[in-house]
């Protein structure tokens, strides 16, 4: 094991982690703010890249392609929101349905192929894993993605401070109170799901450019990575972050930490095929922490005779 190879891999892990951090910010909107587990993202995490890459391959400019990727994400979020609110399908199932449907749509977008490559030499890609060392700052993948993260965090910070944004937060916090205060909770859930999936699709478009191809399976398990980032952010930065903007930044940092840890375990010799199992286990353990804590602490209190009735 050569420590040099690990250090060499770190910048790449940072850039990739930051891109997944944008995705995790999308997951944060549904999981934390709206209190919904939205599985649409596993599909959207491919849709954005597929739309962006195919449009660029067909001669559209970078900004137009990125915007269309974002719009595609909004549509996917709308589909889930509509199934959930108007059709009364539980949120998790609505997300799974959209995600499944997206698999076919993604294949269609990619002209029936499971994989479409785009070469940074021939197309004006905004990020690429080739631009990580020995390039001017404005081209550096980490720098470019960091700018995206900051802009997205700023926009979200503004948005969730508006009347509409507050209403969406209230919807997630207490739906019956929200309706009593005249808030259209169904509409707000749809808006939140759209926004979340739009951001995830944008992350997908960046990831496809970064790795130089879009793959039909690139979104598989995205929700787990997103949750991992959200949970890591809470565990590590939870006590430091009280402001909404810093909470979002912490989520992005959580994704970076996740990717650095992944690089580390790969460096230790873990088979790359076992990564998803490892991710699932890690997230499962962290999600069960609150319950275990409660049980363990209650046990302690009983032993000490300090338990309350």
């Amino acid at each position, binding site marked *: 094991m050569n420590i040099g190879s690990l250090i060499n891999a770190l910048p790449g892990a940072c850039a990739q982690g930051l891109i997944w951090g944008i995705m995790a910010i999308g997951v944060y909107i549904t999981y934390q703010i709206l209190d919904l587990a939205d599985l649409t993202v596993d599909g959207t995490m491919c849709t954005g890249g597929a739309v962006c890459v195919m449009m660029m391959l067909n001669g559209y400019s970078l900004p137009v392609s990125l915007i269309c990727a974002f719009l595609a994400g909004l549509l996917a979020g709308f589909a889930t929101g509509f199934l959930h609110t108007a059709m009364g399908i539980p949120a998790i199932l609505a997300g799974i349905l959209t995600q499944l449907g997206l698999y076919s749509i993604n294949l269609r977008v990619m002209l029936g192929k499971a994989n479409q490559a785009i070469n940074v030499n021939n197309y004006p890609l905004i990020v690429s894993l080739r631009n990580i060392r020995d390039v001017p700052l404005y081209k550096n993948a980490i720098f470019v993605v960091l700018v995206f993260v900051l802009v997205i965090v700023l926009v979200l910070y503004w948005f969730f401070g*508006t009347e*509409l944004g507050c209403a969406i937060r209230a919807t997630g916090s*207490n739906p019956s109170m929200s309706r*009593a205060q005249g*808030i259209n909770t169904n509409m707000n859930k749809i808006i939140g799901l759209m926004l979340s999936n739009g951001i995830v699709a944008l992350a997908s478009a960046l990831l496809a450019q970064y790795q130089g191809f879009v793959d039909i399976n690139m979104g598989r398990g995205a929700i787990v990575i997103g949750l991992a980032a959200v949970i890591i952010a809470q565990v590590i930065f939870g006590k430091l972050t009280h402001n909404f903007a810093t909470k979002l930044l912490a989520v992005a940092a959580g994704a970076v930490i996740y990717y650095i840890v992944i690089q580390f375990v790969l460096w230790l010799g873990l088979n790359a095929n076992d990564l998803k199992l490892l991710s699932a286990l890690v997230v499962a353990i962290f999600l069960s922490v609150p319950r275990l804590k409660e049980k363990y602490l209650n046990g302690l209190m009983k032993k000490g005779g300090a338990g309350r009735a």
Partner: protein
Amino acid sequence: MLKIVGVKKTFNAGTVNEKRALVGIDLTLNEGDFVTVIGGNGAGKSTTLNAIAGVWLVDEGEIIIDGINVTRLPEYKRAKYLGRVFQDPMTGTAASMQIEENLALASRRGLPRTLKSGINAAERERYKEKLKILDLGLEDRLTTKVGLLSGGQRQALTLLMATLKKPKLLLLDEHTAALDPKTAAKVLEATDKIIARDNLTAIMITHNMKDAIAHGNRLIMMHEGRIIYDVSGEEKQKLHVSDLLAKFEQASGDEFANDRMILA
């Protein structure tokens, strides 16, 4: 101010769990009426308030608030006309949001939610003044998360939120039942104060007969989904708990023995 005509509601119709919750409610409230509602468990008190608030749509009948027929309006649209405080202190506020954010949400009841700032400096000053009325020291804790407040504080805050934008009708669903006696008295006092100050039309459900007699200008007793007793003015002021118990016994017959515990 409020007119309810022939409202009926059956839950789980056609199943073994069928429950005829409201079997024909007629009620007219004049502007400034403060009605207390009593009745045993399952009498239809909360169901009546939920019917007015639009938690679900009624099977039959009409609900008219200040001349506007709201029978078919969804809950969030009716909220424009209504202020509501619930029995469970957790229900009326958003725990993960600050006191001032909760108030800002309430002050925009019935207005479209735009991309304008969710709260501004002038509002904060106004909320401070309003919070002082509650006499709970909340005016110095505007940015505290509501989840950190006690049940009584949350209930008082909910009351303030319900009346921040003057409602056509204030619905109080046993809003002091979950509080300790001292806090309950304080919240009830604040309720009286606000209703009198703003000349609100209000309906208050209570399990406490003394409270039902002491507060408001009109008293309604419900039983098995209908109104069985409606008294107001001087006649109400002369009422005693024993009168109400007698009335209830007359209406419900044998069941009285069971319900006496709950009512007294």
